[in-house]
């Protein structure tokens, strides 16, 4: 056993009303790939922010190479050899790659030398990048390479990666893992934060599992099954979704030749999208973020209108109708962004229930609102979907992500849709709530609705959908049955790795 590189000793950090970390201890040795596992809100981010100097612990100590370590700022942490790749990219879209890299360095070399070094490092680790390109034009995978190279240029001793694979295709994940293994072989320790258990089992040497701010287990993830790890994270046994085995019936939703212009400047729009969803069927749409998912949801929900014949519900052309008309016909949608799109953050749950439920639940008449009925509808959602909130009069913003998502999905399901379109139904939701949401979607399908699930979580799509297609720059691949589909095939459908090459491991 080598001496630890970094040891965390009894660290505690409390925020008003919540203890983010309570008496947390673990060690990382040089060259180790150490996983930090936990649900949202388990305290992973706070712990990492302390190591990176963004937050200071209330009590406890950290040691780096045996000496006391308490970085007051991220600069100090970087000087001590700690580098971090953030979950939400900390990049500047209007600046070019070299400028972004320079901003993350203590003493950047002159621009010309920096560009040369970026090329050198990117070739060594199989992460091709042009230093002169503007970051706003790069794909998600390329942006992550910018972050990684920014870290590597400083020869870090410890590399922290916060949920690095959520935006990558399976091929890109493979290449990332090869890069990380090469780094680890060179003696760099890696602290890998994720809740994707299979990845952790494939990559990591050790795992520390956090639940509600406390370390509940330290183990070797290769010796545990994903299910055991998940149950350690959640602290309860998880139910496997029940497919019910409904036989798909008639075609409910038929989309053909759907082409729309991008909704915003960074969107891709949709090009000639065609698919159909049958009664009782769950149709999964995968793809790397930013390939038209939001446009697809908007086009199906009616936020963007299209040619009348492009979308048909039970044979009736609805492509030209707006959201309210489609709602009254039975097409409902739950968009990805909970705060601001699916729900108005500062309005109460009653008001939010009313916003989409007015038409189908009869909550308004001749322009006047029926508040008692709206409150009853909100109460039904809260009760039926186990939304944890002090009451329906509280603002949507005050709910945790998982609870608000349960509310948003429940609100649409309780309106008995014929067709339901959901985008990222369990994004940022803890495992128990995610399982409940998936089961609710499956139950709805069993009752005869057609469901479109747009998601970047491939495991989720494979778990609940009957057929799968991938969005790639606004085009949809031909749908294929989910049964028997392998990760490699899905990766190819998603467009494979964008001009990535395998790290030159031999060097």
């Amino acid at each position: 056993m080598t001496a630890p590189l970094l040891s965390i000793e009894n660290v505690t950090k409390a925020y008003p009303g919540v203890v983010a970390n309570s008496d947390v201890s673990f060690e990382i040795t040089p060259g180790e790939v150490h996983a930090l596992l936990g649900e949202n809100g388990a305290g992973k981010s706070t712990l990492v922010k302390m190591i990176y100097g963004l937050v200071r612990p209330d009590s406890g100590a950290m040691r780096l190479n045996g000496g006391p370590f308490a970085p007051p700022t991220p600069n100090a942490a970087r000087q001590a050899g700690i580098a971090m790749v953030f979950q939400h990219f900390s990049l500047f879209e209007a600046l070019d790659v070299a400028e972004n890299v320079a901003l993350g360095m203590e003493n950047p070399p002159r621009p010309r030398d920096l560009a040369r070094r970026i090329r050198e490092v990117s070739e060594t680790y199989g992460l091709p990048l042009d230093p002169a390109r503007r970051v706003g034009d790069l794909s998600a995978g390329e942006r992550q390479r910018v972050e990684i190279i920014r870290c590597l240029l400083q020869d870090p001793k410890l590399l922290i990666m916060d949920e690095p694979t959520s935006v990558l295709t399976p091929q890109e994940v493979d290449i990332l893992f090869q890069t990380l293994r090469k780094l680890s072989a060179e003696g760099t320790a890696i602290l890998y934060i994720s809740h994707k258990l299979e990845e952790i089992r494939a990559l990591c040497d050790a795992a520390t599992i956090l639940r509600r701010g406390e370390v509940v287990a330290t183990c070797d993830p290769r010796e545990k099954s994903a299910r055991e790890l998940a149950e350690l994270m959640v602290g309860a046994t998880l139910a496997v979704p029940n497919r019910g085995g409904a036989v798909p019936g008639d075609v409910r939703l038929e989309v053909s030749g759907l082409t729309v212009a991008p909704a915003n400047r960074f969107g891709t729009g949709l090009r000639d999208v065609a698919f159909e969803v049958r009664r009782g069927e769950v149709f999964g749409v995968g793809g790397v973020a930013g390939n038209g998912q939001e446009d697809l949801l908007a086009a199906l929900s009616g936020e963007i209108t299209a040619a009348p014949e492009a979308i048909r519900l039970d044979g009736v052309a609805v492509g030209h109708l707006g959201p309210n008309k489609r709602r009254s016909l039975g097409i409902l949608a739950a968009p990805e962004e909970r705060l601001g799109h699916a729900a108005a953050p500062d309005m109460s749950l009653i008001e939010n229930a009313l916003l989409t439920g007015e038409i189908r639940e009869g909550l308004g008449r001749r322009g006047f609102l029926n508040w008692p009925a709206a409150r009853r509808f909100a109460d039904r959602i809260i009760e039926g979907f186990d939304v944890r909130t002090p009451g329906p009069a509280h603002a949507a913003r005050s709910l945790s992500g998982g609870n608000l998502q349960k509310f948003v999905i429940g609100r649409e399901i309780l309106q008995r849709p014929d067709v339901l379109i959901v985008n990222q139904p369990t994004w940022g939701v803890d495992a128990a709530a995610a399982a409940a949401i998936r089961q609710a979607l499956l139950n709805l399908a069993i009752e005869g609705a057609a469901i479109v699930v747009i998601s970047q979580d491939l495991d989720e799509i494979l778990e609940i959908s009957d057929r799968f297609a991938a969005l790639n720059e606004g085009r949809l691949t031909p749908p294929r049955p989910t049964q028997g589909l392998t990760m490699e095939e899905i990766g190819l459908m998603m467009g494979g790795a964008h001009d990535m090459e395998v790290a030159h491991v031999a060097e």
Partner: protein
Amino acid sequence: MDLSSIDPILLIAALIVAATPILLAAIGELVVEKAGVLNLGVEGMMITGAICGFAVAVETQNPALGFIGAALGGAALSLIFGFLTQYLLSNQVATGLALTLFGLGISALIGQAYIGVKPPITADLDIPLLSDVPVIGPILFQHNLMVYLSLGIVAGVWYLLKYTRVGLVLRAVGENHDAAHALGYKVVRIRMLAIAFGGACAGLGGAYLSLIRVPQWTEGMTAGAGWIALAIVVFASWKPWRVLLGAYLFGGITVLQLNLQAAGLKIPVEYLSMSPYLITILVLVIMSADRSRAALNAPAALGRPFHASS
């Protein structure tokens, strides 16, 4: 009408004088906006600078001290804005508008004792040899120091933003303050410094009006120059040299329409008076007509409040 009474050489020399106050205010605001802060109080900082500079110059009989006083006055006012918006997280638009009204009021208060007073004269530089060159001499080399200083500030801001690390950090803060904070840059401190610089520049611009261009103190003498400076920054797509172009264009048309009025052009005076505003905006709109590229240059975090949550 007698157009021959307009001397092109004097016209160009005069347009530089007319444009300098707006140029100073605009280049200051450009730095502020590049740092991601929208300060609509330029008009108020200009007029505060005008009276502070005027008062200091009259009391000390030294125009150089006057300009320093103007810069300090403008910066002090802008720091009120900075404190309110950066530390107390007040709304930038509302606070900026309030700052303009406050500046107009406090300048009138300070200025009561100075109405009708003559300020000390700011000498023009008379650069030997160069100023005697025909045509170019009177246009370029017979101005006061502030004209050259304003051009120096434009060149300095351009160089700073484009080639230095300080400029890169400033742009980064204006682009994505959360990411800049995560990398360990002091967002609020950088913004406060930018705001103070913007205030100082606006103050200098105001003092140029009261000490050189007019030279006298009257209430509300900036007459919208701060607003045109704000517009120039936006329509110049946050590019320093385009700010220079916009300011000189505005100054040029202002001087030209005055000359045309004097020459007795048969167009109602009101139309001539509005022409500088219209034409400047029009030209800059056409230059930034390619919307997608202009939008790329806008600081993404402009006007958004920053609060370090962690």
